């Protein structure tokens, strides 16, 4: 399905999630705070490259996932790029209804490019994390980093049961369709409402059964478990420092070249 499937196949699957988390976060934060097109592109290239080189992900998958948010990004950047510009000097402009002057100025072109590259860099950093770390390892890491336990447990339970609920909803939907439940708009609304209430009731019942099963295994209020043994990942820290250093260098280099 999503990045999670890649994560289970990743070569870094068994590496301690905390260094992976810090590595991605540093790259992401430096990329976001450096107001620079070059740093964005550098982050995009390096993190996607490492995703392939270290994680063993297929280039096709990495590109595919990068394309997912691209549509939103492009639309978002277009609204920055093309805007009412008054009588300012423009690279390109046109008059709407002979009164409003819309167009692209050099300033907004740079801004749009900056936003696009920064976002792509940040996204590639997040993908490096999520394509090489299964969610359960990530929540485990959050717990070790002292994120409130209640929050972490909720995330884990939601992640586990979302698959069951969506499967159940899918089966109900098929059953409804097989009895012509979605013939027209009115009926569709009605069937959808019934589906929602059925899924809600079922999850309520399942909740009770899950609780009984947890109790029978000695549940006393906390879902403490032991993860499998991780491979050491301390080598991610020097790599994080290296990547951050390069990012900062490129940032200053760009500053010195551009006015």
């Amino acid at each position, binding site marked *: 399905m999503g990045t*999670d499937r890649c994560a*289970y196949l990743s070569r870094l*699957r*068994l590496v301690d999630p905390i260094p992976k988390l810090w590595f991605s976060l540093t790259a992401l934060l430096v990329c976001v705070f450096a107001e620079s097109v070059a740093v964005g592109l550098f982050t995009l290239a390096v993190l996607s490259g490492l995703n392939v080189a270290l994680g063993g992900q297929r280039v096709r998958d990495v590109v595919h996932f990068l394309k997912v948010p691209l549509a939103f990004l492009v639309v978002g950047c277009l609204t920055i790029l093309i805007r009412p510009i008054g009588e300012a000097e423009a690279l390109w402009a046109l008059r709407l209804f002979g009164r409003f002057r819309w167009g692209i100025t050099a300033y907004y072109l740079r801004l749009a490019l900056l936003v696009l590259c920064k976002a792509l860099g940040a996204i590639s950093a997040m993908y490096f994390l999520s394509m090489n770390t*299964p*969610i*359960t*390892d990530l929540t*485990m890491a959050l717990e070790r980093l002292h994120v409130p336990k209640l929050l972490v447990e909720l995330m*884990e*339970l939601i*992640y*586990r049961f979302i*698959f*069951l609920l969506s499967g159940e909803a899918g089966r109900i939907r098929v059953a409804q369709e097989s009895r012509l439940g979605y013939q027209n708009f009115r009926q569709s609304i009605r069937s959808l409402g019934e589906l929602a209430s059925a899924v809600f009731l079922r999850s309520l019942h*399942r909740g009770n*059964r*899950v609780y*009984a*099963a*947890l*109790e*029978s*295994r*000695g*549940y*006393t209020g906390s*879902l*403490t*478990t*032991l*993860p*499998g*043994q991780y491979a050491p990942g301390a080598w991610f820290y020097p790599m994080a420092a290296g990547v951050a250093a390069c990012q900062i260098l490129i940032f200053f280099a760009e500053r010195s070249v551009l006015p």
Partner: protein
Amino acid sequence: MSCAIEVRGLTYTYSDGTKALDAISFQAEAGKVTGILGANGAGKSTLFLNMNGVLTPQSGQVLLDGQTVGYSRRELPELRRRVGVVFQDPDDQLFSADVYRDISFGAVNLGLPEEEVRRRVEDAMERTGVTRLKDKPTHALSYGQKKRVAIAGVLVMEPSVMILDEPTAGLDPQGVSDIMRLLCQLRDALGITIILATHDMDIIPLYCDQVYLLSGGKMVASGTPEDVFSQPELLRQNHLRLPRIAHLMEILRDRDGVEVSRSAATISAARREILRLAREAGEQAE
């Protein structure tokens, strides 16, 4: 006979007034497989939850190795450790998306040191044959695989009694014999007493040493599988049936007047009967 677990006069009423269990008594012999038969809604699941301390009976006792079990806060963890329950739907039991972590849950709750938890998890995975599934997410497993993981999650607590609610429901024929073989291996290797609720009549004569028939919250029959199968009317009243082979024997006896044993409920027993009949017919012809 030494009893691993005994239930005496256990009564449980739900808060809405439904009397789910009415003075139930039964015994499960140590190191044996005890079957509990009962139609849907007969009270099997309620009984199991009482035996494991998730529910507290209004009256009656549960005895483990001859000692009365307490339901106080202090005694509950020990009861839950010694009596493990494998629920019917493994999706109800597996709460973690990570197989290894889910299996470790029970052992962690016992407050064991990390190495001991790991040893037990590895051991349970090995015994149930799920070692190579440990790097997969729970939702990617098949139903039978989830069932094995659920069993492993109970094994880590090293229970002396393992209760399984409908262990064969939802499995294909191959899966049924695999799971039953696994249970027999656990019984033989670890000496675990196994109690299983089922309405899969055909596995009863193959695997169970003792059978109880639960109906409307009451125990209405008990004995060896042969004893219970000699009362086909009682089974039918309770929405159950004879095993196919036993049914065949019943028809041969009652309709065709052939002198076959009523207790032949498995293929090997039926084979013996048929060979005996053939031999007798041969002797008569001579």
